[in-house]
């Protein structure tokens, strides 16, 4: 038996990860709250009014981080799913499952804020723009993942089936994105281009970055919170759960 310098798998077992997650949650939650306050303050009060879009543009401080996060969470989910299939670790699938609702929430938030922004800017709630359409399809992928997870009663099978689905989905995401983009350029001659990024004031960029970090911290905190709940639910018959202080109390 070779001795490893670092035990990579130490925190891959629920009994050792559960207390660690419990310690990490307040840290990320407080960070999320502080960053949110700073980001909101810069976004709503410090950042200058946009020359073309007026005050309405300020919704991007919520919209852009939400879209980024929704895409990124899907990739992280696929990563944990691959880990789960390769190493057969329980915690990896639990992580993927815990991330999915947050990702779906961000995708929905991005769609809602996008259409709220679109109404005053474009005069319409919805445009079949490449980005909007692929965000919508991403939302559908999340919904499919959650539905499959909910439909399978056996948690082990649900984990693995969802892992396969997440991997199939992540392969498809770029294909879907490019197909929609080409479809869009074929269909619409004079659509509104969202790609020409206006030179952004530095404070606007700062506000957006702070809000993006807020979204990160929030996602980590919520995913850890949810994964703790999943661990307790799945391992309720295990000894270590019975020995927890909060369970004994």
């Amino acid at each position, binding site marked *: 038996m070779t001795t490893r310098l670092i035990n990579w798998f130490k925190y891959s077992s629920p009994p050792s990860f559960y207390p660690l997650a419990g310690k990490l949650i307040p840290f990320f939650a407080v960070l999320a709250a502080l960053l949110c306050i700073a980001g909101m303050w810069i976004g709503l009060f410090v950042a200058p009014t946009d020359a073309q879009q007026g005050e309405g543009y300020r919704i991007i401080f919520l919209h852009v981080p939400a879209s980024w996060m929704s895409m990124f969470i899907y990739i992280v989910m696929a990563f944990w799913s691959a880990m789960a299939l390769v190493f057969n670790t329980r915690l990896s699938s639990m992580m993927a499952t815990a991330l999915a609702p947050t990702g779906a929430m961000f995708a929905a938030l991005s769609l809602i804020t996008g259409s709220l922004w679109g109404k005053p800017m474009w005069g319409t709630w919805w445009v079949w723009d490449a980005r909007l359409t692929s965000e919508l399809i991403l939302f*559908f*992928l999340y919904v499919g993942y959650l*539905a499959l997870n909910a*439909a*399978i009663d056996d948690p082990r099978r649900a984990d693995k089936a969802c892992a396969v689905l997440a991997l199939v989905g992540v392969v498809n995401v770029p*294909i879907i994105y490019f*197909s*929609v983009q080409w*479809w869009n350029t074929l269909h619409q001659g004079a659509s509104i281009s969202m790609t020409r990024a206006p030179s952004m004031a530095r404070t606007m960029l700062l506000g957006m970055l702070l809000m993006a970090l807020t979204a990160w911290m929030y996602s980590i905190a919520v995913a850890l919170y949810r994964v703790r709940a999943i661990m307790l639910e799945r391992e309720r018959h295990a000894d270590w759960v019975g020995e927890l202080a909060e369970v004994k109390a």
Partner: protein
Amino acid sequence: MTTSFLAVLHREFLLALRRKSDVLTVLFFFVIVTSLFPLAIGPEPRLLRTIGPGVLWVAALLSTLLGLHRLFADDLADGTLEQMALSPPAFVWLVGGKILMHWIVTGLPVVLLAPLLGLQYDLDTRSLGPLTLGLLLGTPLLSMIGAIGAALTLGLRGGGALLALLVLPLNIPALVFGAGAVEAQIAGLDYTGHLSLLAAMLVAAAFFAPLAVTAAIRIALE
């Protein structure tokens, strides 16, 4: 390898022959759905020409979904699937044979029927070429992606609706390029690029989809 592959093909073909109504149901579903659109939207030829390619593609997509949940379910119920998974020839080939025959009995008739229905939509003869070619490349792709969904939802309650929910978003690229090819031809543009992309996706799916399907079936059998 080849003999077991051919044996599966033969078996699936016989099964389809014994249950002709299953195949005909899919076909008539395709015909009826495409006939509903002119009734709902109106018989104006210019409008029909515009929506024709899209409607035919969406109808083809929905009709491949129709029989999909039966693809592995019957074999799971009588234990055949388990025997296949345990048998010495590679399971991937047996699964591949099942998917191929599923396409031959449900996808291919749709492809053959599509030009005829295209005429109903007042598509000119030059657009029927890319339509049929696109469906010829696209329907096997739909069958393969559908098979992944069918394997993942094997034996679950509400399998049919769940299957649609999983598979439809993944089929969007095929739909975009398939219907796009016909629209490019109508607009007087080159449509070979669309078909090449469809063919590329088909080749990629032919390699990866059977692997994903076998993985999913093994999960379901555990």
